[in-house]
């Protein structure tokens, strides 16, 4: 790619437009004021896969959502505290006295990218699509508490809710608003295949220009953006480079300006280089939304398959169906296995220290996180052996593997293919469990195949897996008894005590009262151990330091790109070319 840039650069240098790339360290960074901001330049973002769609209602991949976040706007945006909101398409909002409705006052100076005016019709129309099950909008559950949305006038809408909830506002503003004047003419069943999915019209700071299949997506500045003077950049280019190693190389060579999920080892090197002042690529690490865990199957998979088959289309006998797993049905066994696993070593080795060992179900990124609420199972090999011994497990035949009533403590732990970190973690866990006389057979399975076996069929013993959590505190899909047949409760966790505590926590509108309930939930789950939580990952992003005004925090790397700008003296060749 350097050669192609050379072609571009040489004429520009001859014209005196190009600027030399001097190295500037963190210490030498210049501070800028509002007056220094100049518009222009381009940002090239490297992504590993092309988006699946650019329609907020039909897109599912992270790449799609990142691009969509620049093209569309919501009614309000979540602030860094993950509790309060900043106005966007809604300039203000009021709660009713009974907290069962919210009235949004909409901006009247917003236009869609095609010039049409934004108004309350768009909000009502979007809501009606969001709750339509024919579409597969993945924020569906956030609207379940919304009874109806009504329009008072062109710039006022009211969200009526079924019941009080601490997340009323969060649920109401979830999802980007789509244009009624374009989508209303398309039958609902055709929305997922309509041309709009690849030619979006939004109200955001950047307008869609072009999508070259498997190659790139190009956005340009929305000159009529409702926040005057923004955005500063002329354009944002998403370059598809499926291989992360390639992406990293292109970032170093200057072909791209921005990449997320820099591999941990490379990130560490980059951090050192940045601190030494040897690079102009700035590393950012922040609390992300991803954690890794081992899920123990609480039920006997063979029995489950048999009962389900026998039941056919009729309702299965739940007691018979959820017969405990021969090994992991016991809390003491799960506790012993958790105690035998050295989370810190795994986190250090696998993520090069770019993670936090995790002990309970509430991720550190969410407000109810309280590190003291969890029951912490410290790494203790002898302790683990003692627990298993008290449970009657011993090595009677001297083969190094524990047994009990003729049953060997041997099982399979699965993970998905294509994730080197998980494969590595699996190997370490295998070694650590071997020390207490437990035989764990690692098995790496292709992703779709694995989820097919884990989720509907429950055909596994233990699984090393990970969840990407939302910014709303929510554990129902993972552990609530109502989710027992929903894929995410794949370990078949069933606890009336958990159900009660979680429901109370979710109902509570007073923050400190809710915190008490969430602490109880954390304590219960970290004691009961349906999962052995391993570590919470830090996100690793790298951006060329010529971009100023960059804000990256736990909400992600795409939260304020309309504020990004480049000083004239630091413009790169591709900033100049775009202006020609």
């Amino acid at each position, binding site marked *: *790619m*350097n*050669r*192609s840039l050379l*072609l*571009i650069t040489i004429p520009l240098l001859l014209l005196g437009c190009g600027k030399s790339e001097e190295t500037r360290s963190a210490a030498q960074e210049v501070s800028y004021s509002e007056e220094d901001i100049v518009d222009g330049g381009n940002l*090239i973002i490297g992504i590993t*896969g092309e988006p699946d*769609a650019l329609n907020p209602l039909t897109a*599912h991949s992270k790449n799609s959502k990142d691009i969509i976040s620049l093209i569309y706007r919501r009614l309000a945006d979540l602030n860094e505290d993950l509790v309060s909101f900043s106005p966007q398409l809604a300039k203000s909002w009021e709660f009713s006295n009974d907290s069962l409705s919210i009235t949004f006052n909409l901006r009247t100076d917003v236009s869609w990218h095609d010039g049409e005016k934004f108004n309350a019709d768009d909000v009502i129309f979007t809501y009606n699509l969001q709750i339509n*099950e*024919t579409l*597969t909008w*993945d924020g*569906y*559950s*956030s609207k*379940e508490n919304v009874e109806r949305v009504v329009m008072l006038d062109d710039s006022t809408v009211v969200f009526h809710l079924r019941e009080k909830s601490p997340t009323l506002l969060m649920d109401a503003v979830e999802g980007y608003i789509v244009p009624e004047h374009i989508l209303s003419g398309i039958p609902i*069943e055709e929305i*997922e*295949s*309509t041309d709009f*999915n*690849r030619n979006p019209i939004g109200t955001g700071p950047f307008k869609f220009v072009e999508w*070259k*299949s*498997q*190659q*790139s997506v190009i956005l340009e500045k929305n000159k009529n953006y409702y926040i005057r003077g923004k955005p500063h950049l002329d354009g944002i*280019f998403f*370059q*598809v*480079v*499926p*291989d992360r*190693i*390639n992406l990293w*190389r*292109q970032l170093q060579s200057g*072909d791209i300006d921005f990449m997320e999920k820099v591999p941990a080892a490379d990130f560490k090197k980059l951090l050192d280089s940045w601190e030494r002042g040897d690079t102009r690529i700035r590393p950012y690490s922040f609390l992300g939304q991803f954690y890794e865990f081992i899920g123990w199957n609480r039920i006997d998979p063979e029995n489950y398959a048999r009962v389900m088959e026998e039941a056919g289309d009729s309702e299965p006998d739940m007691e018979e169906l959820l017969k405990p797993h021969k090994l992991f049905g016991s809390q003491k066994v799960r506790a012993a296995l958790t105690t035998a696993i050295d989370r810190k070593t795994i986190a250090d080795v696998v993520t090069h220290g770019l993670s936090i060992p995790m002990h309970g179900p509430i991720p550190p990124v969410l407000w109810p996180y309280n590190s003291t609420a969890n029951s912490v199972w410290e790494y203790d090999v002898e302790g683990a052996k003692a627990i298993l011994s008290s449970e009657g497990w011993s090595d009677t035949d001297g083969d190094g593997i524990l047994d009990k009533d003729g049953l060997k403590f041997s099982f399979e732990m699965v993970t998905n293919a294509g994730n080197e970190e998980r494969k590595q973690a699996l190997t370490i866990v295998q070694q650590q469990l071997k020390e207490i006389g437990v035989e764990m057979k690692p098995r790496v399975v292709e992703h*779709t*195949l694995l*989820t*097919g*076996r884990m*989720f*509907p069929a429950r055909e596994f013993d233990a699984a090393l897996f990970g*969840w990407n959590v*939302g910014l709303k505190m*929510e554990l129902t*899909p*993972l552990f609530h008894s109502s989710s027992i*047949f*929903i*894929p*995410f409760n794949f370990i078949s966790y069933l606890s009336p005590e958990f159900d009660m505590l979680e429901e109370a926590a979710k109902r509570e509108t007073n923050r400190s009262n809710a915190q008490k309930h969430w602490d109880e939930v954390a304590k219960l789950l970290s004691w009961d151990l349906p999962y052995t939580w391993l570590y919470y990952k830090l996100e690793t992003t790298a951006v060329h330091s010529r971009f100023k005004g960059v804000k990256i925090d736990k909400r992600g790397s795409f939260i304020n790109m309309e504020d990004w700008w480049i000083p004239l003296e630091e413009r790169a060749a*591709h900033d100049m*070319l*775009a202006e*020609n």
Partner: protein
Amino acid sequence: MVAYSLRRLLVTIPILFLGLSLTFFVIRLAPGDPTDRFITPSMSPGLKENIAKKFGIDQPIPIQYIAWMKSVILHFDFGNSFANGRNASKVILDALPPTLLLSTLSLVFGLILGTLLGAYSALKSGSKTDKTLTSLLLFFYSVPTFWLGLIFLGFFAISLDWLPSSQLTSIFHDRLGFFGKLWDYAIHLILPVLTLGLTTAPVYGRFVRNSMIEVLNSDFITAARARGLSERKILLHYGLRNALLPVISILGTSLPALFSGAVVVEVIYSLPGMGRVMFDAALGRDYPIIMAASTVAFISVIIGNFLADVGYAVADPRVRLEGSN
């Protein structure tokens, strides 16, 4: 000749039908659920069933097969991609040009290189040069395309940083002038064409060498020499020309191999072609795309074989007679 060609074409129809039917059943029976990609913790319980219904995969496989056949035969419609809702034929049509470009350039490069090396090797038959060239050809014949691609990628694109490591064009391609665009294509295609061409060349090289040795040892070459014709004329007009005739037959049959090689090369160099489309579709169980891409692959195999047969029939009239009989 026309009757012979038509007959050959007619034979291909049931082969295509059988091949596609087999592919249909194999991918439907393979484990993995296409609806899994839509699963998120916030989805409603009935959504998975809705998606399956929308994709038509809630029906028994024979019913799905009949519906699919009807749609393909009557409307030539492969349905919409499960991943992005785009029409599968459109996805394939978008991805086909880069693959054709890569395959054609690699074929031309492989053919020229193979012919030159094979012919030179034949001329130096038995010498050290012949042995070296034969070993070299054998090496590139045996080496897996993905391995060679990764080596080139690591060395020329990553370590030396001489050439681009991915894509068919740079991001500002549209803003370049005509020659700039050509150069942009060229530098992006060097490594993929080299990778695929080098693994294709040995097929022709070995064939040309053996064929050339046989021709050069023929009586008519001895006769030509006896008539005092120049060695250059003997080699080019009589030797190489006759040695190249059988190459026609392997030219067509090598098309499918070239196609599958292109899949690997496209994945390695992130080229926006059929290879990446098929790779992603297979991982995501995107049935409509898999079937549309398989159809193109089958057709390319059939066309390859057909061209080989016709080409050989043109070159050797005895084939047509045998065919008629």
